[in-house]
Protein backbone atom coordinates (compact mmCIF):
# COMPACT_ATOMS: atom_id res chain seq x y z
CA UNK A 1 0.00 0.00 0.00
CA UNK A 2 1.25 3.43 -0.93
CA UNK A 3 0.82 6.18 1.64
CA UNK A 4 1.71 9.82 1.24
CA UNK A 5 2.48 12.09 4.18
CA UNK A 6 2.34 15.82 3.56
CA UNK A 7 4.63 17.61 5.96
CA UNK A 8 5.49 21.19 6.71
CA UNK A 9 8.61 22.70 8.16
CA UNK A 10 7.76 25.27 10.85
CA UNK A 11 9.61 27.48 13.30
CA UNK A 12 10.23 25.74 16.62
CA UNK A 13 7.74 27.06 19.16
CA UNK A 14 10.69 27.61 21.50
CA UNK A 15 12.17 30.12 19.07
CA UNK A 16 11.54 33.74 19.92
CA UNK A 17 10.39 34.86 16.50
CA UNK A 18 10.93 38.29 15.03
CA UNK A 19 8.88 39.96 12.32
CA UNK A 20 10.76 40.55 9.06
CA UNK A 21 11.53 43.98 7.62
CA UNK A 22 8.50 43.74 5.27
CA UNK A 23 6.15 43.52 8.27
CA UNK A 24 4.42 40.52 6.68
CA UNK A 25 6.67 37.55 7.28
CA UNK A 26 8.92 36.00 9.89
CA UNK A 27 12.55 36.97 10.02
CA UNK A 28 14.17 33.59 9.32
CA UNK A 29 17.49 34.44 11.01
CA UNK A 30 18.07 32.58 14.23
CA UNK A 31 15.00 30.38 13.77
CA UNK A 32 15.27 26.67 14.52
CA UNK A 33 13.18 24.74 12.02
CA UNK A 34 11.32 21.62 12.97
CA UNK A 35 8.80 19.20 11.58
CA UNK A 36 5.33 20.50 12.38
CA UNK A 37 4.43 18.56 15.55
CA UNK A 38 0.99 17.48 14.25
CA UNK A 39 2.70 16.07 11.15
CA UNK A 40 4.83 13.84 13.39
CA UNK A 41 1.68 11.92 14.29
CA UNK A 42 0.88 11.53 10.61
CA UNK A 43 4.36 10.20 9.82
CA UNK A 44 4.27 7.83 12.76
CA UNK A 45 0.84 6.45 11.84
CA UNK A 46 1.83 5.90 8.22
CA UNK A 47 4.94 4.01 9.35
CA UNK A 48 2.87 1.89 11.73
CA UNK A 49 0.45 0.98 8.96
CA UNK A 50 3.32 0.00 6.71
CA UNK A 51 4.98 -2.04 9.45
CA UNK A 52 1.75 -3.82 10.27
CA UNK A 53 1.10 -4.71 6.65
CA UNK A 54 4.74 -5.70 6.29
CA UNK A 55 4.92 -4.00 2.89
CA UNK A 56 4.24 -0.79 1.06
CA UNK A 57 5.76 2.59 0.59
CA UNK A 58 5.61 5.81 2.59
CA UNK A 59 6.30 8.94 0.55
CA UNK A 60 6.87 12.28 2.27
CA UNK A 61 5.95 15.43 0.35
CA UNK A 62 6.72 18.99 1.30
CA UNK A 63 6.93 22.37 -0.33
CA UNK A 64 9.23 25.23 0.47
CA UNK A 65 12.78 26.48 0.05
CA UNK A 66 16.00 24.47 0.09
CA UNK A 67 15.95 24.29 3.90
CA UNK A 68 12.91 22.03 3.82
CA UNK A 69 15.12 19.12 2.82
CA UNK A 70 16.56 18.90 6.33
CA UNK A 71 13.08 18.20 7.65
CA UNK A 72 12.38 15.74 4.84
CA UNK A 73 15.60 13.93 5.81
CA UNK A 74 14.31 13.67 9.35
CA UNK A 75 11.15 12.03 8.09
CA UNK A 76 13.23 9.65 5.97
CA UNK A 77 15.30 8.92 9.09
CA UNK A 78 12.12 8.02 10.96
CA UNK A 79 11.46 5.46 8.22
CA UNK A 80 9.73 7.01 5.19
CA UNK A 81 10.97 5.45 1.94
CA UNK A 82 11.37 8.47 -0.28
CA UNK A 83 10.52 12.13 -0.50
CA UNK A 84 9.30 14.70 -2.97
CA UNK A 85 10.39 18.29 -2.50
CA UNK A 86 8.29 20.87 -4.33
CA UNK A 87 10.74 23.68 -4.43
CA UNK A 88 9.65 27.29 -4.17
CA UNK A 89 10.99 30.26 -2.31
CA UNK A 90 7.68 32.12 -2.25
CA UNK A 91 5.27 31.61 0.62
CA UNK A 92 2.21 29.69 -0.47
CA UNK A 93 -1.30 30.35 0.78
CA UNK A 94 -3.32 27.27 1.75
CA UNK A 95 -5.04 26.85 -1.62
CA UNK A 96 -1.78 27.29 -3.54
CA UNK A 97 -0.18 24.70 -1.31
CA UNK A 98 -3.13 22.32 -1.72
CA UNK A 99 -3.06 22.66 -5.51
CA UNK A 100 0.67 21.98 -5.62
CA UNK A 101 0.35 18.98 -3.32
CA UNK A 102 -2.64 17.56 -5.17
CA UNK A 103 -0.81 17.78 -8.49
CA UNK A 104 2.22 16.02 -7.04
CA UNK A 105 0.20 13.31 -5.29
CA UNK A 106 -2.44 12.59 -7.97
CA UNK A 107 -0.49 9.97 -9.89
CA UNK A 108 1.20 8.27 -6.95
CA UNK A 109 -1.66 5.82 -6.37
CA UNK A 110 -1.84 6.58 -2.66
CA UNK A 111 -4.41 4.76 -0.55
CA UNK A 112 -4.00 7.15 2.37
CA UNK A 113 -2.88 10.76 2.20
CA UNK A 114 -1.86 11.94 5.65
CA UNK A 115 -1.63 15.46 7.05
CA UNK A 116 -1.22 17.02 10.46
CA UNK A 117 -4.49 18.66 11.51
CA UNK A 118 -2.86 22.08 11.29
CA UNK A 119 0.55 23.68 11.09
CA UNK A 120 1.57 25.36 14.31
CA UNK A 121 2.82 28.46 12.51
CA UNK A 122 -0.29 29.80 10.74
CA UNK A 123 -2.85 27.45 12.35
CA UNK A 124 -4.94 27.59 9.16
CA UNK A 125 -5.90 23.88 9.18
CA UNK A 126 -6.92 24.16 5.53
CA UNK A 127 -4.34 22.33 3.46
CA UNK A 128 -5.46 18.81 4.39
CA UNK A 129 -9.16 19.19 3.56
CA UNK A 130 -8.46 21.33 0.48
CA UNK A 131 -6.00 18.82 -0.94
CA UNK A 132 -8.49 16.04 -0.27
CA UNK A 133 -11.15 17.97 -2.13
CA UNK A 134 -8.89 18.57 -5.11
CA UNK A 135 -8.07 14.87 -5.17
CA UNK A 136 -11.76 14.04 -4.67
CA UNK A 137 -10.96 11.94 -1.63
CA UNK A 138 -13.10 11.58 1.47
CA UNK A 139 -11.42 13.41 4.33
CA UNK A 140 -11.58 12.88 8.08
CA UNK A 141 -9.93 15.59 10.12
CA UNK A 142 -8.29 15.58 13.56
CA UNK A 143 -8.24 11.85 14.11
CA UNK A 144 -7.23 10.60 17.54
CA UNK A 145 -7.28 6.86 16.84
CA UNK A 146 -6.90 4.70 13.78
CA UNK A 147 -7.74 1.06 12.94
CA UNK A 148 -7.44 -0.48 9.50
CA UNK A 149 -9.42 -3.52 8.35
CA UNK A 150 -8.91 -4.29 4.66
CA UNK A 151 -9.83 -1.08 2.85
CA UNK A 152 -11.92 0.34 5.69
CA UNK A 153 -10.42 2.59 8.32
CA UNK A 154 -12.21 3.23 11.60
CA UNK A 155 -11.11 6.43 13.23
CA UNK A 156 -12.11 8.40 16.27
CA UNK A 157 -12.29 12.16 16.62
CA UNK A 158 -12.43 14.19 19.78
CA UNK A 159 -15.40 16.48 19.45
CA UNK A 160 -16.95 18.92 21.87
CA UNK A 161 -17.98 16.88 24.88
CA UNK A 162 -17.44 13.45 23.33
CA UNK A 163 -15.91 11.14 20.78
CA UNK A 164 -17.09 10.55 17.26
CA UNK A 165 -16.38 7.25 15.51
CA UNK A 166 -16.11 7.44 11.74
CA UNK A 167 -15.67 4.72 9.15
CA UNK A 168 -14.02 5.67 5.91
CA UNK A 169 -13.25 3.64 2.81
CA UNK A 170 -9.83 4.01 1.28
CA UNK A 171 -8.46 5.82 -0.60
CA UNK A 172 -8.91 8.66 1.84
CA UNK A 173 -7.23 11.71 3.31
CA UNK A 174 -6.76 11.89 7.07
CA UNK A 175 -5.49 14.69 9.29
CA UNK A 176 -3.98 13.74 12.62
CA UNK A 177 -4.43 15.11 16.12
CA UNK A 178 -2.42 14.85 19.31
CA UNK A 179 -2.95 11.59 21.17
CA UNK A 180 -3.11 9.45 18.02
CA UNK A 181 0.24 7.88 18.82
CA UNK A 182 3.63 8.51 20.34
CA UNK A 183 5.95 9.47 17.47
CA UNK A 184 9.24 7.56 17.43
CA UNK A 185 12.73 8.96 17.67
CA UNK A 186 14.78 8.29 14.58
CA UNK A 187 17.41 5.65 15.22
CA UNK A 188 21.07 6.11 14.37
CA UNK A 189 20.65 3.44 11.72
CA UNK A 190 17.63 5.26 10.33
CA UNK A 191 19.57 8.50 10.09
CA UNK A 192 22.37 6.79 8.21
CA UNK A 193 19.95 5.02 5.89
CA UNK A 194 18.14 8.31 5.20
CA UNK A 195 21.23 9.68 3.51
CA UNK A 196 20.83 7.12 0.74
CA UNK A 197 17.09 7.56 0.26
CA UNK A 198 16.04 9.69 -2.70
CA UNK A 199 14.57 13.19 -2.44
CA UNK A 200 12.96 14.01 -5.75
CA UNK A 201 13.37 17.76 -6.16
CA UNK A 202 10.83 19.45 -8.42
CA UNK A 203 10.79 23.18 -9.16
CA UNK A 204 7.35 24.57 -8.38
CA UNK A 205 5.53 27.47 -10.01
CA UNK A 206 2.85 28.57 -7.58
CA UNK A 207 -0.49 29.47 -9.14
CA UNK A 208 -2.31 32.70 -8.47
CA UNK A 209 -2.53 33.60 -4.79
CA UNK A 210 -5.99 33.99 -3.34
CA UNK A 211 -4.94 35.41 -0.03
CA UNK A 212 -2.54 38.10 0.90
CA UNK A 213 -0.98 38.58 4.32
CA UNK A 214 -1.34 42.30 4.91
CA UNK A 215 0.60 42.56 8.11
CA UNK A 216 2.02 40.46 10.91
CA UNK A 217 2.44 41.67 14.47
CA UNK A 218 3.59 40.17 17.74
CA UNK A 219 1.04 40.10 20.53
CA UNK A 220 1.19 43.12 22.81
CA UNK A 221 3.49 42.62 25.78
CA UNK A 222 1.50 41.57 28.80
CA UNK A 223 1.12 44.26 31.44
CA UNK A 224 2.15 43.51 35.00
CA UNK A 225 -0.35 41.81 37.30
CA UNK A 226 -1.99 43.44 40.27
CA UNK A 227 -2.64 42.03 43.73
CA UNK A 228 -6.03 43.23 44.92
CA UNK A 229 -5.71 42.01 48.49
CA UNK A 230 -5.25 38.89 50.57
CA UNK A 231 -7.46 36.14 51.99
CA UNK A 232 -11.24 35.93 51.84
CA UNK A 233 -11.56 39.64 52.47
CA UNK A 234 -10.21 40.31 49.00
CA UNK A 235 -12.84 38.19 47.20
CA UNK A 236 -15.49 40.91 46.69
CA UNK A 237 -12.90 43.30 45.27
CA UNK A 238 -11.50 40.53 43.04
CA UNK A 239 -14.98 39.79 41.69
CA UNK A 240 -15.60 43.46 41.06
CA UNK A 241 -12.33 43.86 39.17
CA UNK A 242 -12.92 40.74 37.10
CA UNK A 243 -16.44 41.89 36.26
CA UNK A 244 -15.94 45.58 35.71
CA UNK A 245 -12.33 46.02 34.60
CA UNK A 246 -11.30 42.74 33.01
CA UNK A 247 -14.88 41.97 31.95
CA UNK A 248 -14.27 38.24 32.02
CA UNK A 249 -17.21 37.35 34.27
Amino acid sequence: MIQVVCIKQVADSETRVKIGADGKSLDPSGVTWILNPYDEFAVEQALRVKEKLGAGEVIAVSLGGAGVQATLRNVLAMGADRAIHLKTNSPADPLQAARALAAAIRDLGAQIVWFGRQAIDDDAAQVGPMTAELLQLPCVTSIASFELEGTTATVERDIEGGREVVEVTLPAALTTDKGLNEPRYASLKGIMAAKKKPIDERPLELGEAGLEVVSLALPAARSAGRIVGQGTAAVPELLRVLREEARVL
Partner: protein
Amino acid sequence: MARFSGVDFYEIDSLLSEEERQIRDHVRGWVEDRYLPLVERAYEEAYFPAEVIPEIAEMGLLGATLPEKYGCAGVNALAYGLAMQELERGDSGLRSFASVQGSLAMYPIYAYGSEAQRMKWLPRMAKGELVGCFGLTEPDFGSNPAGMITRAERKVGGYVLNGAKMWITNGTIADLAIVWAKLRDEDTGRDDIHGFILEKGMKGFSAPEQKRKHSLRASVTSELILQDVVVPEENLLPDAVGLKGPLGCLSQARFGIAFGVVGSAMACFHAAAEYSKSRVQFGRPIGGFQLVQERLADMLTQITQAQLLCVQLGRLKERGTVRTEQISLAKRNNCEMALEVAREARDVLGANGITAEYPVMRHMCNLESVKTYEGTHNIHTLVLGEAITGIAAYR
Protein backbone atom coordinates in the same frame (compact mmCIF):
# COMPACT_ATOMS: atom_id res chain seq x y z
CA MET B 1 14.93 28.12 31.25
CA ALA B 2 15.18 28.41 27.46
CA ARG B 3 15.48 25.10 25.66
CA PHE B 4 19.07 23.99 25.11
CA SER B 5 20.13 24.34 21.51
CA GLY B 6 23.81 23.52 21.75
CA VAL B 7 26.91 25.62 22.10
CA ASP B 8 28.58 26.49 18.83
CA PHE B 9 30.55 29.71 18.96
CA TYR B 10 33.05 28.65 16.32
CA GLU B 11 30.75 27.22 13.65
CA ILE B 12 31.95 23.78 14.58
CA ASP B 13 28.79 22.47 12.96
CA SER B 14 30.40 23.28 9.63
CA LEU B 15 33.06 20.66 10.41
CA LEU B 16 30.40 17.99 10.81
CA SER B 17 28.50 16.05 8.19
CA GLU B 18 24.74 16.47 7.96
CA GLU B 19 24.37 12.97 9.30
CA GLU B 20 26.59 13.69 12.31
CA ARG B 21 24.59 16.79 13.13
CA GLN B 22 21.32 14.94 12.76
CA ILE B 23 22.42 12.15 15.06
CA ARG B 24 23.50 14.66 17.67
CA ASP B 25 20.28 16.64 17.40
CA HIS B 26 18.11 13.55 17.67
CA VAL B 27 19.88 12.37 20.80
CA ARG B 28 19.61 15.89 22.18
CA GLY B 29 15.87 15.93 21.58
CA TRP B 30 15.44 12.56 23.23
CA VAL B 31 17.45 13.59 26.29
CA GLU B 32 15.44 16.77 26.61
CA ASP B 33 12.04 15.11 26.27
CA ARG B 34 12.53 11.71 27.86
CA TYR B 35 15.53 11.70 30.16
CA LEU B 36 15.71 15.11 31.82
CA PRO B 37 12.25 14.70 33.37
CA LEU B 38 13.52 11.56 35.15
CA VAL B 39 17.00 12.43 36.21
CA GLU B 40 16.62 14.68 39.23
CA ARG B 41 14.53 12.16 41.11
CA ALA B 42 16.81 9.30 40.09
CA TYR B 43 19.79 11.26 41.31
CA GLU B 44 18.19 12.24 44.57
CA GLU B 45 16.97 8.72 45.32
CA ALA B 46 20.11 7.13 43.89
CA TYR B 47 18.92 4.73 41.23
CA PHE B 48 19.51 4.24 37.52
CA PRO B 49 16.24 4.86 35.62
CA ALA B 50 16.33 1.53 33.82
CA GLU B 51 13.17 2.30 31.85
CA VAL B 52 15.32 4.25 29.41
CA ILE B 53 17.32 1.18 28.37
CA PRO B 54 14.89 -0.01 25.66
CA GLU B 55 14.64 3.53 24.31
CA ILE B 56 18.36 4.15 23.96
CA ALA B 57 18.70 0.66 22.52
CA GLU B 58 15.96 1.36 20.00
CA MET B 59 17.81 4.49 18.90
CA GLY B 60 20.94 2.42 18.37
CA LEU B 61 23.04 4.02 21.10
CA LEU B 62 24.42 0.78 22.55
CA GLY B 63 27.59 -0.31 20.78
CA ALA B 64 26.76 2.28 18.13
CA THR B 65 30.06 1.99 16.24
CA LEU B 66 30.01 -1.80 15.93
CA PRO B 67 28.92 -3.40 12.64
CA GLU B 68 25.29 -3.85 11.60
CA LYS B 69 25.89 -7.56 11.33
CA TYR B 70 25.68 -7.71 15.12
CA GLY B 71 22.56 -5.59 15.33
CA CYS B 72 24.50 -2.37 15.89
CA ALA B 73 24.20 0.96 14.10
CA GLY B 74 27.70 1.09 12.58
CA VAL B 75 28.05 4.86 12.89
CA ASN B 76 31.39 6.65 12.62
CA ALA B 77 33.49 7.71 15.59
CA LEU B 78 32.53 11.37 15.52
CA ALA B 79 28.80 10.69 15.39
CA TYR B 80 29.24 8.31 18.30
CA GLY B 81 31.19 10.91 20.26
CA LEU B 82 28.54 13.56 19.66
CA ALA B 83 25.85 11.16 20.84
CA MET B 84 27.86 10.63 24.04
CA GLN B 85 28.11 14.40 24.44
CA GLU B 86 24.34 14.66 24.36
CA LEU B 87 23.79 11.76 26.75
CA GLU B 88 26.16 13.31 29.24
CA ARG B 89 24.44 16.66 28.81
CA GLY B 90 21.64 14.73 30.49
CA ASP B 91 23.77 13.11 33.17
CA SER B 92 27.17 11.43 33.42
CA GLY B 93 25.35 8.37 34.75
CA LEU B 94 23.48 7.95 31.50
CA ARG B 95 26.62 8.30 29.41
CA SER B 96 28.40 5.91 31.77
CA PHE B 97 25.71 3.31 31.18
CA ALA B 98 26.13 3.62 27.42
CA SER B 99 29.94 3.71 27.63
CA VAL B 100 30.12 0.61 29.77
CA GLN B 101 27.63 -1.33 27.68
CA GLY B 102 29.18 -0.32 24.35
CA SER B 103 32.87 0.28 24.92
CA LEU B 104 33.62 -1.89 27.93
CA ALA B 105 31.31 -4.88 27.52
CA MET B 106 30.32 -5.15 23.85
CA TYR B 107 33.63 -3.94 22.46
CA PRO B 108 35.81 -6.62 24.14
CA ILE B 109 33.45 -9.33 22.90
CA TYR B 110 33.68 -7.80 19.43
CA ALA B 111 37.44 -7.22 19.47
CA TYR B 112 38.70 -10.20 21.46
CA GLY B 113 35.84 -12.68 21.22
CA SER B 114 35.18 -15.55 18.81
CA GLU B 115 32.56 -15.19 16.11
CA ALA B 116 30.33 -17.54 18.13
CA GLN B 117 30.65 -15.29 21.18
CA ARG B 118 29.86 -12.21 19.10
CA MET B 119 26.75 -13.76 17.61
CA LYS B 120 25.65 -15.05 20.99
CA TRP B 121 25.96 -11.82 22.94
CA LEU B 122 26.15 -8.70 20.79
CA PRO B 123 22.71 -8.57 19.16
CA ARG B 124 20.92 -8.96 22.49
CA MET B 125 23.20 -6.41 24.12
CA ALA B 126 22.53 -3.93 21.30
CA LYS B 127 18.81 -4.39 21.94
CA GLY B 128 19.36 -3.69 25.62
CA GLU B 129 17.97 -7.12 26.55
CA LEU B 130 21.26 -7.95 28.23
CA VAL B 131 23.26 -5.45 30.26
CA GLY B 132 27.02 -5.79 30.60
CA CYS B 133 29.66 -4.54 32.99
CA PHE B 134 33.45 -4.42 33.07
CA GLY B 135 35.45 -5.58 36.05
CA LEU B 136 39.04 -4.44 36.12
CA THR B 137 39.51 -2.30 39.25
CA GLU B 138 40.01 -4.07 42.59
CA PRO B 139 39.90 -2.77 46.15
CA ASP B 140 43.70 -2.65 46.25
CA PHE B 141 44.48 -2.05 42.59
CA GLY B 142 43.03 1.00 40.86
CA SER B 143 45.55 3.01 38.89
CA ASN B 144 47.79 -0.02 38.84
CA PRO B 145 45.58 -2.78 37.45
CA ALA B 146 48.59 -4.91 36.50
CA GLY B 147 48.88 -5.79 40.18
CA MET B 148 45.43 -7.39 40.30
CA ILE B 149 44.81 -10.30 42.61
CA THR B 150 41.80 -11.89 40.91
CA ARG B 151 42.93 -15.17 39.45
CA ALA B 152 41.69 -17.95 37.20
CA GLU B 153 42.82 -21.56 37.56
CA ARG B 154 42.45 -24.00 34.75
CA LYS B 155 40.26 -27.04 35.31
CA VAL B 156 38.68 -29.59 33.01
CA GLY B 157 36.45 -27.82 30.48
CA GLY B 158 37.07 -24.36 31.83
CA TYR B 159 38.31 -22.20 34.70
CA VAL B 160 37.69 -21.42 38.34
CA LEU B 161 37.80 -17.72 39.26
CA ASN B 162 38.45 -16.18 42.67
CA GLY B 163 38.81 -12.56 43.66
CA ALA B 164 36.95 -9.28 44.04
CA LYS B 165 36.35 -6.25 41.87
CA MET B 166 35.20 -2.85 43.05
CA TRP B 167 33.63 0.32 41.62
CA ILE B 168 32.03 -1.59 38.79
CA THR B 169 29.47 0.46 36.87
CA ASN B 170 26.23 -1.46 36.09
CA GLY B 171 27.50 -4.41 38.21
CA THR B 172 24.29 -5.17 40.10
CA ILE B 173 22.02 -4.80 37.07
CA ALA B 174 24.34 -6.66 34.70
CA ASP B 175 23.48 -9.95 33.04
CA LEU B 176 27.09 -10.49 32.12
CA ALA B 177 30.41 -9.19 33.36
CA ILE B 178 33.67 -8.97 31.46
CA VAL B 179 36.04 -9.87 34.29
CA TRP B 180 39.79 -9.50 33.93
CA ALA B 181 41.84 -12.06 35.86
CA LYS B 182 45.32 -13.50 35.94
CA LEU B 183 45.90 -16.94 34.50
CA ARG B 184 49.16 -18.85 34.58
CA ASP B 185 50.49 -19.76 31.15
CA GLU B 186 51.25 -23.47 31.33
CA ASP B 187 54.23 -23.27 28.97
CA THR B 188 56.01 -20.17 30.22
CA GLY B 189 54.80 -20.30 33.83
CA ARG B 190 54.02 -16.56 33.54
CA ASP B 191 50.86 -14.83 34.76
CA ASP B 192 48.89 -13.11 32.01
CA ILE B 193 45.70 -11.09 32.25
CA HIS B 194 42.74 -12.62 30.41
CA GLY B 195 39.12 -11.63 29.95
CA PHE B 196 36.24 -13.90 30.99
CA ILE B 197 32.52 -13.57 30.40
CA LEU B 198 30.80 -14.19 33.71
CA GLU B 199 27.06 -14.66 33.71
CA LYS B 200 24.57 -13.58 36.32
CA GLY B 201 23.53 -16.57 38.38
CA MET B 202 26.81 -18.45 38.07
CA LYS B 203 27.45 -20.17 41.39
CA GLY B 204 29.75 -18.14 43.64
CA PHE B 205 29.29 -14.91 41.67
CA SER B 206 27.53 -11.95 43.29
CA ALA B 207 27.41 -8.20 42.66
CA PRO B 208 26.24 -6.16 45.67
CA GLU B 209 25.67 -2.47 45.03
CA GLN B 210 27.97 0.15 46.55
CA LYS B 211 25.72 2.69 48.24
CA ARG B 212 26.24 6.09 49.80
CA LYS B 213 27.87 7.78 46.81
CA HIS B 214 27.82 11.56 46.52
CA SER B 215 28.59 11.35 42.80
CA LEU B 216 27.06 9.45 39.87
CA ARG B 217 24.04 8.78 41.99
CA ALA B 218 21.87 8.03 38.95
CA SER B 219 24.23 5.19 38.02
CA VAL B 220 24.73 1.77 39.58
CA THR B 221 28.19 1.04 41.05
CA SER B 222 28.95 -2.38 42.49
CA GLU B 223 31.39 -4.87 43.85
CA LEU B 224 31.88 -8.14 42.04
CA ILE B 225 32.60 -11.04 44.37
CA LEU B 226 33.99 -14.22 42.88
CA GLN B 227 34.19 -17.34 45.05
CA ASP B 228 35.15 -20.45 43.14
CA VAL B 229 33.11 -19.38 40.14
CA VAL B 230 33.24 -22.07 37.46
CA VAL B 231 33.47 -20.50 34.01
CA PRO B 232 33.27 -22.72 30.92
CA GLU B 233 36.01 -22.62 28.29
CA GLU B 234 33.65 -21.00 25.79
CA ASN B 235 33.44 -17.92 28.07
CA LEU B 236 37.13 -17.07 27.78
CA LEU B 237 37.83 -14.22 25.34
CA PRO B 238 40.37 -15.93 23.08
CA ASP B 239 42.16 -12.90 21.63
CA ALA B 240 43.10 -10.83 24.67
CA VAL B 241 46.33 -11.62 26.48
CA GLY B 242 47.89 -9.13 28.88
CA LEU B 243 46.92 -5.65 30.00
CA LYS B 244 46.46 -4.45 26.44
CA GLY B 245 43.11 -6.28 26.40
CA PRO B 246 41.43 -4.10 29.04
CA LEU B 247 43.43 -1.04 27.94
CA GLY B 248 42.05 -1.41 24.43
CA CYS B 249 38.53 -1.21 25.86
CA LEU B 250 39.45 1.78 28.00
CA SER B 251 40.69 3.65 24.93
CA GLN B 252 37.26 3.25 23.39
CA ALA B 253 35.50 4.42 26.52
CA ARG B 254 37.86 7.34 27.16
CA PHE B 255 37.18 8.56 23.66
CA GLY B 256 33.48 8.72 24.57
CA ILE B 257 34.26 10.45 27.86
CA ALA B 258 36.29 13.17 26.13
CA PHE B 259 33.13 14.06 24.19
CA GLY B 260 30.72 13.32 27.00
CA VAL B 261 32.07 15.79 29.51
CA VAL B 262 31.75 18.56 26.93
CA GLY B 263 28.02 17.88 27.22
CA SER B 264 28.12 18.33 31.01
CA ALA B 265 30.05 21.55 30.58
CA MET B 266 27.53 22.81 28.04
CA ALA B 267 24.65 22.07 30.40
CA CYS B 268 26.37 24.05 33.16
CA PHE B 269 27.32 26.92 30.88
CA HIS B 270 23.79 27.11 29.51
CA ALA B 271 22.34 27.21 33.03
CA ALA B 272 24.79 29.90 34.13
CA ALA B 273 24.31 32.07 31.06
CA GLU B 274 20.51 31.94 31.31
CA TYR B 275 20.58 32.56 35.03
CA SER B 276 22.91 35.52 34.72
CA LYS B 277 20.48 37.23 32.40
CA SER B 278 17.49 36.88 34.69
CA ARG B 279 18.93 37.20 38.19
CA VAL B 280 18.87 40.85 39.23
CA GLN B 281 21.11 42.24 41.96
CA PHE B 282 22.07 45.85 42.57
CA GLY B 283 19.40 46.82 40.08
CA ARG B 284 20.64 44.94 37.06
CA PRO B 285 21.06 41.37 35.79
CA ILE B 286 24.20 39.86 37.30
CA GLY B 287 25.21 39.05 33.71
CA GLY B 288 25.77 42.78 33.35
CA PHE B 289 28.68 42.75 35.78
CA GLN B 290 32.16 42.38 34.38
CA LEU B 291 33.21 39.72 36.88
CA VAL B 292 30.32 37.49 35.86
CA GLN B 293 30.94 38.16 32.18
CA GLU B 294 34.55 37.12 32.57
CA ARG B 295 33.44 33.78 33.98
CA LEU B 296 31.00 33.22 31.15
CA ALA B 297 33.67 34.20 28.62
CA ASP B 298 36.11 31.72 30.18
CA MET B 299 33.54 28.94 30.14
CA LEU B 300 32.68 29.53 26.51
CA THR B 301 36.34 29.63 25.55
CA GLN B 302 37.12 26.39 27.36
CA ILE B 303 34.12 24.60 25.89
CA THR B 304 35.00 25.77 22.39
CA GLN B 305 38.58 24.53 22.74
CA ALA B 306 37.37 21.17 23.99
CA GLN B 307 34.90 20.87 21.12
CA LEU B 308 37.64 21.45 18.55
CA LEU B 309 39.83 18.89 20.28
CA CYS B 310 36.99 16.40 20.04
CA VAL B 311 36.31 16.95 16.36
CA GLN B 312 39.92 16.31 15.45
CA LEU B 313 40.14 13.35 17.83
CA GLY B 314 37.09 11.91 16.08
CA ARG B 315 38.66 12.35 12.67
CA LEU B 316 41.89 10.69 13.83
CA LYS B 317 39.91 7.75 15.13
CA GLU B 318 38.02 7.42 11.87
CA ARG B 319 41.31 7.41 10.00
CA GLY B 320 42.52 4.68 12.30
CA THR B 321 45.66 6.58 13.20
CA VAL B 322 44.68 7.75 16.67
CA ARG B 323 47.25 7.05 19.41
CA THR B 324 46.31 6.28 23.00
CA GLU B 325 48.18 9.31 24.28
CA GLN B 326 46.05 11.52 22.04
CA ILE B 327 42.96 10.06 23.68
CA SER B 328 44.60 10.60 27.09
CA LEU B 329 45.18 14.25 26.29
CA ALA B 330 41.53 14.80 25.41
CA LYS B 331 40.18 12.80 28.37
CA ARG B 332 42.46 14.65 30.77
CA ASN B 333 41.89 18.11 29.37
CA ASN B 334 38.17 17.86 28.88
CA CYS B 335 37.37 16.37 32.29
CA GLU B 336 39.33 19.11 34.01
CA MET B 337 37.72 21.69 31.76
CA ALA B 338 34.22 20.43 32.52
CA LEU B 339 34.88 20.39 36.24
CA GLU B 340 36.11 23.97 36.15
CA VAL B 341 33.12 25.08 34.11
CA ALA B 342 30.77 23.29 36.50
CA ARG B 343 32.36 24.89 39.55
CA GLU B 344 32.28 28.36 37.99
CA ALA B 345 28.68 27.86 36.91
CA ARG B 346 27.76 26.75 40.41
CA ASP B 347 29.20 29.97 41.72
CA VAL B 348 27.34 32.12 39.18
CA LEU B 349 24.07 30.59 40.38
CA GLY B 350 24.81 31.52 43.98
CA ALA B 351 22.69 29.58 46.48
CA ASN B 352 20.44 28.32 43.70
CA GLY B 353 23.50 26.59 42.32
CA ILE B 354 23.45 24.00 45.07
CA THR B 355 19.85 22.93 44.52
CA ALA B 356 18.21 20.30 42.37
CA GLU B 357 16.33 23.07 40.57
CA TYR B 358 19.36 23.41 38.33
CA PRO B 359 21.55 20.67 36.86
CA VAL B 360 24.82 22.29 37.83
CA MET B 361 25.68 20.77 41.19
CA ARG B 362 24.66 17.34 39.93
CA HIS B 363 27.04 17.62 36.98
CA MET B 364 29.76 19.01 39.23
CA CYS B 365 29.53 16.06 41.60
CA ASN B 366 29.37 13.57 38.74
CA LEU B 367 32.45 15.00 37.11
CA GLU B 368 34.52 14.19 40.18
CA SER B 369 34.02 10.52 39.32
CA VAL B 370 34.57 11.03 35.64
CA LYS B 371 37.87 12.71 36.40
CA THR B 372 38.90 9.63 38.38
CA TYR B 373 37.60 6.69 36.41
CA GLU B 374 39.08 5.39 33.18
CA GLY B 375 42.50 6.58 34.28
CA THR B 376 42.78 9.42 36.75
CA HIS B 377 43.90 12.88 35.72
CA ASN B 378 47.33 12.09 37.17
CA ILE B 379 47.69 8.84 35.29
CA HIS B 380 46.91 10.54 31.99
CA THR B 381 49.49 13.16 32.89
CA LEU B 382 52.01 10.34 33.21
CA VAL B 383 50.91 8.84 29.89
CA LEU B 384 51.58 12.21 28.26
CA GLY B 385 54.82 12.58 30.19
CA GLU B 386 56.00 9.29 28.78
CA ALA B 387 54.94 10.28 25.27
CA ILE B 388 56.95 13.49 25.58
CA THR B 389 60.09 12.20 27.29
CA GLY B 390 60.13 8.53 26.44
CA ILE B 391 60.45 7.81 30.16
CA ALA B 392 57.61 5.97 31.88
CA ALA B 393 57.13 7.38 35.37
CA TYR B 394 54.62 4.80 36.51
CA ARG B 395 55.81 1.41 35.36
